[in-house]
């Protein structure tokens, strides 16, 4: 579901609209309120990943059995779950799993996609076709199902989940990088550089790489959201981290059986997930707008 849920991949590839500034309308500040809020949220997430104990009050793994399934209150802002554990603390500590696995998956996609894309764009026709077929095969498998396949072969673990999602994301980067690489390769200034005797390597570093890499950070930021959603989906299905790990997808799976009597163990982790994805999406879009302005 990740590719589909991630709306902005399409955005990144579609031709652009003229921005408001270009249309000569009123001046807008460089960063909208939404983006500032998103950045603040990401900072909060980073704190949650690096130093969770500073923004939570309880041990996420320790439960008081006399206090199971308590609704949100002054003592427990997000309530407690079945084993009496504080939901807020679990949400905070859970950030690191979703984020770290999501970012790892994204990095795998970036690494694979950029390398393959550059080769496809710069080398001969045969290599290009072959690598494009690899992209086609990888994108033929829905990411959830590809992950199931990886897990049945290699077992359920956080690493395997990251690998699986990373693999499904490679075509996204690969195709864009390949397109950019082809454009640059055929550009005049590159031909001139060769005429002047520059080596392939220096041409690559000087001209190609920066050009290719302006696209990547945007897609990467947008991709983090997709990856996090996919990670949480796989954890929800039981294929990633196991209980009692406070990963958000795992928490949602655990809350299923008591849904009828307790809404808080499922609503708060879900909100955290959604907010995280929205935050990265907003930042990604802002980045995209920024790069487009610069490109004119």
């Amino acid at each position: 579901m990740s590719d589909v849920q991630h709306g902005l991949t399409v955005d990144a590839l579609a031709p652009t609209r003229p921005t408001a500034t270009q249309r000569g309308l009123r001046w807008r500040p460089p960063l909208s309120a939404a983006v500032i809020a998103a950045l603040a949220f990401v900072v909060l997430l980073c704190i949650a990943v690096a130093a969770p104990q500073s923004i939570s009050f309880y041990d996420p793994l320790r439960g008081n059995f006399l206090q199971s399934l308590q609704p949100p209150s002054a003592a427990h802002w997000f309530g407690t779950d079945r084993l009496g554990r504080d939901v807020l603390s679990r949400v905070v500590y859970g950030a690191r799993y979703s984020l770290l696995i999501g970012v790892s998956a994204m990095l795998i996609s970036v690494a694979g996609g950029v390398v393959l894309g550059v080769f496809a764009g710069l080398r001969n026709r045969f290599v290009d076709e072959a690598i494009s077929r690899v992209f086609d095969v990888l994108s033929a498998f829905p990411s959830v199902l590809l992950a199931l396949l990886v897990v049945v072969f290699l077992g359920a673990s956080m690493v395997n989940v990251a690998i699986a999602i990373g693999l499904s994301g490679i075509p996204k980067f690969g195709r864009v990088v390949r397109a950019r690489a082809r454009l640059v390769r055929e550009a005049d200034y590159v031909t001139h550089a060769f005429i002047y005797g520059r080596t392939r390597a220096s041409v690559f570093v000087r001209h190609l790489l920066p050009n290719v890499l302006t696209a990547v950070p945007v897609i990467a930021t947008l991709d983090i959201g997709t990856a996090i959603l996919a990670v949480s989906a796989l954890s929800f299905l039981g294929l990633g981290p196991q209980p009692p790990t406070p990963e958000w997808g795992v928490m949602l799976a655990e809350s299923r059986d008591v849904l009828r009597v307790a809404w808080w163990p499922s609503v708060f982790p879900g909100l955290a997930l959604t907010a995280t994805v929205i935050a990265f999406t907003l930042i990604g879009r802002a980045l995209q707008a920024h790069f487009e302005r610069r490109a004119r």
Partner: protein
Amino acid sequence: MHIDRPASLPALPARSLSAVALALAGSLFGGAVQAQPAPLAGGSLTWGVTTEPVCFDPHRSSQQNSFFLIRNYVDSLIYKKADGTFAPWLATAWTISQDGREYTLTLRKGVTFSDGTPFDAAAVKANLDWVKDPANTANAASFLVYYDHTDVIDPGTAKIVLRQPDSTLLESLSSVKLGFLSPKILTKNVDLCSGGPGVIGTGPFVFEQYRRGQSVTFARNPAYAWPAENAKHRGPAYLDRVTYRFLPEYAVRTGALSSGQVDVIEGVQPTDIGLFQDAEGFQFLTGPSSETSFTLNVNYTQPPADDVRVRQALRDGFNGEAIVRSIYRGTVPRAWSIIGPSNAAYAKPLVGTWGNDIAGANRKLDEAGWTGRDSEGFRTKDGKRLTIALGYPQPYVRDNRDILIQAIQAALRENIGLDLDVRIISAGEWAKQTATGTWTIYPNTDNPSDAAMELWDMLGSGGFLYGNIKTPDAETTGLIDKVRLVPDPTQRQPLLNAIQERGVQQGFIVPLFAPHYQIAAKANVQGLGFEPQLDAPASAYEIWIGK
């Protein structure tokens, strides 16, 4: 086949005032005013059950949740009643020789398998020999460890001959696991696990259809006339058809019953009991608990659990009472022994004598040298963390037991710094672990059988847990082998007590709670009950649908 309420069950919510008044009125006016309505034949019943059986062959299945489905098409020689005595069923009478090695059974006349094959001594022999043959990898073979052969005296008389006396055999013969399938289908290398109309028994229903992932359906056997002697009626079952739908999630089963999509469910989430108990239009029943408790079996040959102090610390390092009460909301009692509290063989001396001694547990671990602490707070010794793995086989996960184990894991970590590494493992991995004796902690109940048989299974030198381990505890296995030879219950009990006591004292076993099956149903479903030997819901034979 009636309902048992175990004595140790804590008080359930009080009945409504009007019900009390009615009962009082009834007794005041002398005797029951309402006569029981007459059973109505016909109709279909739909159950919602937790587990889809992996195997429909009674001889080879090991899943507790498969047996009460199998019971619909498989009968046994005798029937174990709630008081522990045996009633005639497919065998009308039996005698045991003086030396305890020969069981002569007189078989009921006129019994047939649903494919027309007569049930006779030859069929008994065919089934028992098939189970015993190691090539068939029958789970029930453990019941027949001392079985030698069966003599067919005449079609109506069979003599089972053992190599040595075995006090567990009578109960084993009352188990569905030694039930009977048509000899025609018991060929070599056949695989009957996948179910379907080809699985043929003598039971009140025949196997009609199996839809994988969805349901299994049984249809009435019109020729049926041979229920156990204490059954409430003779002759065919009332229902035309019974369907068991596989709904693994609690919320789904509860919703299905509430909305009327199913008539009965098995396995009710503790937080949902209030929806059905004392509720208009529904009924709620709790079954007996006489077989094994849900217990942590600790492999005492695998380090670090090979140190008795570590095992005792594990046993005492958490408040079992509070955890069980919290997760099950007071609907099941905490266990003191591996044998269930409703069982006559329950070791009463153990009650109240162990558990929840956190200071003592910590002391023992200090004595055992686990004095270091690592960054996450777990104890260490020589740089190694105190970790014991717990592999819970996936097919046996049910009844919130995985939640229970997580709660214990959290408590052990906090109280004594022991890392209980909990993992859900596949059936295949479990099979590998038992084959090599490398399992570490096995959390489960055992399939119901005679108490001595269960101890043999879980702690004995030939059981499935220690069968492949070279040096199990000699004192325990010695007692277990001995008790199987002793038929007299009064002589058996001290031995059974000794085994249970040693198991708990040495930390070989950490009993947790005594499970009961819980059934919720629409109010018009009559005749629901439990089979004492199975400790599970009874087959659909006595069930009928009222107005």
